[in-house]
């Protein structure tokens, strides 16, 4: 079995960067005891496990999984942990007036979900729609909050992650080619780099 194809190289790079994020965040979590670091640990860890499951399956059995429930579940769970991370970073807040810009978030996510549903997988798309709407909403709301300048990098990192996910889904919707020319792999590499940026951004938000 050829492990030097673009798909495997891409996954291996992502395994390395998510593992780096896992190690940094667990080290910081054990040192500072802050919940935000534990959340980042679980976010990166579950994403790492999803990639690892996929890659080990390919290595051991020579083909991708027939039923991809487990890796997809782990990637969805990482979105959930991102939401919990942002809730932790933003902290308790009073009910505040919603910025009208935020209403663009569900418009965007719903529109994209309708596009992706052309290829069926209704349940997966609905789950992504809900999780991504909440996640992007939290990220944009944090970014728009002028009193949270110190935390803006973590919001930018999470929004970059969401943008890269959408870039991957959209490119794989239109292009199935397994080569470096496919933008899917560029977006995936960018996501790998985003995982390296996450601990720096979170450190600025909660440790300084």
């Amino acid at each position, binding site marked *: 079995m050829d492990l030097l194809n673009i798909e495997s190289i891409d996954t291996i790079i992502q395994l390395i960067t998510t593992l780096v994020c896992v190690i940094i965040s667990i080290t910081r979590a054990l040192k500072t005891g802050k919940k935000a670091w534990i959340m980042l640990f679980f976010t990166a860890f579950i994403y790492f496990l999803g990639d690892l499951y996929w890659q080990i399956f390919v290595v051991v059995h020579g083909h991708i999984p027939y039923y991809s429930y*487990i890796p997809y*579940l782990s990637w969805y769970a990482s979105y959930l942990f991102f939401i919990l991370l942002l809730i932790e970073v933003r902290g308790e807040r009073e009910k505040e007036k919603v910025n009208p810009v935020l209403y663009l978030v569900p418009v965007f996510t719903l529109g994209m979900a309708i596009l992706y549903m052309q290829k069926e997988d209704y349940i997966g798309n609905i789950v992504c729609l809900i999780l991504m709407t909440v996640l992007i909403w939290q990220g944009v709301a944090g970014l728009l909050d002028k009193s949270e300048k110190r935390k803006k990098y973590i919001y930018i990192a999470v929004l970059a992650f969401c943008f890269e996910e959408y870039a991957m889904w959209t490119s794989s919707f239109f292009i199935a080619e397994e080569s470096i020319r496919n933008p899917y792999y560029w977006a995936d590499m960018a996501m790998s780099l985003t995982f390296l940026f996450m601990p720096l951004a979170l450190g600025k938000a909660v440790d300084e």
Partner: protein
Amino acid sequence: MNYIENVFICLVAPLLISVFWMKGKARRLMIFLIIGMGACLLSSYISTFLAIIQGADFLSASLEIAPLVEESIKLFPLLFYLLIFEPEAKDAANASLMTAIGFATFENVCFLMENGADSVLHLLIRGFGTGTCHVVCALFISIGIYRLWDKEWLRNIGTLALLAVAITYHGIFNILVSASGAIAIIGYFIPIATIIVTRFFRKELMKERA
């Protein structure tokens, strides 16, 4: 036909009797041990049912369906306990561990029924490997209950998110042990290594939230 239900009744009967004579925490832990064994039996039915519906062969079912079903079924009693009885973190975490231990014990009994008990070395590796895998998965859930969730709704959502961690970890374990030779041995030792590492940081990980 291996009459696993009969074995279940035989194993659970003395434990059930003991429940009537125990009190307090010991009784609660014994009940979760029995629930864990029942969860193992139930999940074998559900996995088989889903495998038939999906048209999956034995290998695909054990690698891609069983971890999902087993970890979910194991979690339901705990979720029920969390939602209805609102226990203290320590009690909930212990309940999660006892369910996992009951599950692993009955799974090992099923393995013995199917494969015999003639190779003590293999049984030793498998017994510790599989048993520890279930305990590690329960540990993920326990760490969340202890350390992370200070609000009711956060605890429920967070526990579900940690379920995905347990499922994927269990899935990776199953893939590795389904191979042969060194890969399988590595697979059996990963949960043991995980539990040794977490034991070092036990104080930090199990520090109750403020």
